[in-house]
């Protein structure tokens, strides 16, 4: 087969392919980060240990949301639905049927993934795009919250309290209050989530998902199975968010409709990714750390404000104001988020 070299566009010097495949480079970075993180709970005082666990929960939610809205470009305003389904499924199985939270977590991911596929299928079939899709996901999460608030088998507004067991047990994911084990379990889950998002992004399915996000019609015209890949993306995204919900319930030993399905949860899944960098691997990680740390710093400052800020004493809302300002600044000044901007600057 003769190859006809059409005169290439002028001035294109040959760019060598990067040495290590990006996927392996990122997995290596992840391994290093995990190693650094392992001793953290032993070093940090108990209060900061709790902040670190909260950051990991934020991270799990952020990675979940990023897969659907970052990689897939399907902007979701209702990830609380999947977080809540994860939390409630594992809590229900544990409280009513004494099932281990690990099995509850798996069941939770299945239920959340099924719900995501359900709402996904109808949205894609009826061609819900952009703002309409965001509003539909928001309405779906709110409906779940209202239904859970008024149905008996989910204890209505009381929600579920996880029964206390005296000694600590990995099988029931319950440890003494300040035990570092919570951090390590969360670290394993968060590490797995980031690893999955790396492998998924560079897999063939991931390539199709990115292509569909860039230009759905062009991707379809080249044979990309659009509906199937969109549904895979929303299912994976919901599954990871559900894991965050199930772990949250085990860590706080309590969940009610507002904590599980409230709109604040959906916002908590969005803000870190936007600050970190939508559609990047490390965006959710950096964003979760910043938002988690910011919430704790403002809480401490509000408790014992320095002199010049003493008027803030006992006024709630400062932490949300701060990261709302940060959100707007990032979207206006750094549309690619922190990681996205650094990556773009570093590649040029």
């Amino acid at each position, binding site marked *: 087969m003769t190859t006809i070299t059409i005169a290439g566009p002028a001035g294109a010097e040959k760019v060598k392919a990067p040495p290590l495949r990006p996927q392996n480079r990122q997995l290596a970075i992840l391994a290093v980060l995990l190693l650094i993180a392992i001793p953290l709970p032993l070093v940090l005082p108990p209060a900061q240990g709790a902040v670190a666990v909260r950051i990991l929960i934020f991270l799990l939610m952020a990675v979940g949301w990023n897969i659907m809205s970052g990689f897939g470009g399907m902007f979701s305003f209702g990830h609380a639905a999947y977080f809540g389904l994860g939390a409630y499924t594992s809590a229900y199985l544990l409280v009513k049927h004494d099932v281990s939270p690990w099995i509850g977590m798996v069941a939770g991911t299945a239920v959340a993934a099924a719900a995501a596929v359900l709402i996904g299928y109808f949205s894609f079939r009826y061609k819900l795009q952009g703002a309409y899709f965001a509003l*539909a996901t928001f309405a779906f999460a*709110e409906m779940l919250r209202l239904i859970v608030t008024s149905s008996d088998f989910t204890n209505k507004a009381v929600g579920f309290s996880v029964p206390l067991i005296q000694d600590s047990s990995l099988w029931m994911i319950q440890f003494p209050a300040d035990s570092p084990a919570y951090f390590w379990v969360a670290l394993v889950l968060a590490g797995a989530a980031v690893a999955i998002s790396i492998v998924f992004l560079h897999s063939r399915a991931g390539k199709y998902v990115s292509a569909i996000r860039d230009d759905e019609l062009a991707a379809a015209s080249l044979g990309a199975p659009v509906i199937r890949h969109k549904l895979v993306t929303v299912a994976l995204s919901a599954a990871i968010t559900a894991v965050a919900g199930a772990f949250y319930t085990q860590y706080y030993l309590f969940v009610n409709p507002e904590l599980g399905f409230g709109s604040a949860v959906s916002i908590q899944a969005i803000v870190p990714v*936007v600050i970190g960098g939508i559609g990047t691997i490390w965006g959710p990680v950096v964003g979760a750390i910043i938002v988690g740390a910011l919430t704790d710093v403002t809480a401490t400052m509000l408790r014992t404000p320095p002199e010049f800020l003493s008027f803030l004493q006992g006024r709630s809302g400062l932490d949300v104001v701060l990261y709302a300002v940060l959100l707007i600044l990032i*979207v206006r000044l750094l549309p690619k988020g922190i990681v996205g901007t650094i990556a773009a600057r570093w590649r040029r």
Partner: protein
Amino acid sequence: MTNTTHGAPLAPEVSPPQTKTKAGGGFLGRAGIVGGVLVIAIVIALLRSGSGLVVWQSVVTGILTGGLYGLIAMGLTLIFGVLDIVNFAHGALLAVAMFISFGMVSATGMHPYLTLVIAIPALFLIGAAVHRGLLSGSGGKSLENQLLITLGLSLLLENGLLMFFGAEPKAIALPGDFQFPLLGAVVAGSRLYAFLGAIALGALLYWLLRRTRLGTAIRAVAANGPGAELVGINVRRIHTLTFAIGTACAGAAAALAGPLVTVTPTLGEQFNITAFVVVVLGGMGNVVGALVGGLLIGLVEQLTTIYLGGQSSLLGVFVVFILVLFLRPQGLFGRKTA
């Protein structure tokens, strides 16, 4: 609302001339269906609650509250419908207006409806500032940015109010509030004023859009931005103006609705989602649609409390919203866009 994905729409660029009769016929057909569904719903409510008085009161309260929802959705239908901007901060801006109105009433003791004179210009300026500062230019173009900026703004406004006014619920007293019976049902004066205010504002907006040069410019920009620019309309200025007018409507709604609700920093959230439902149900950018949509949602809310006893009335609203989104995203009065 045109298809916002990156690919160009499939239908040929030229949008074909609209034959009047077909759309007109469609409208009456749709109005008939909606009316029919409503009558059936009311009959079932009658059977379920077993007393005519309760259902009649629900219908009356539903329509009056619906007027309030229409009033609040009026501004949003302009912004979301005409400018295609998803303004998630509309509820928070309403809350800001309510606090302005509350501040004026408690400081000077003036009549709540007089605060219209302050609330409308104040919100107009705030709206212009928000659009020019945050939403115009490249930053505000993509959908995600709009959603995120307005979400950030709503969090900022809500928690800013929380920080400075505290969360203690406040009430705006309406002097000379009366109520009168209407065939057995009770009609509160303040709700009637809000309802009439909604009609008046709707008429004003309808007149502005249909009869004035500015209105025609706005509709031209809505229909085809680049086209409008070609004929010399300063699209950027019109965008800011429209956003400002939409927000000013929230100011008017706040002054009229103030006495009806307990004023807290987070009240915006509750009205925000209802406003979006009303705008989508009524049809994008359609002022009359917003009013009718408001009435329907008001009725749906009241009937839900009868159907599902212990349930929050919002559940019925969301069910209707999901159905409209899937079956008729362009709403009752909107035209099928590409």
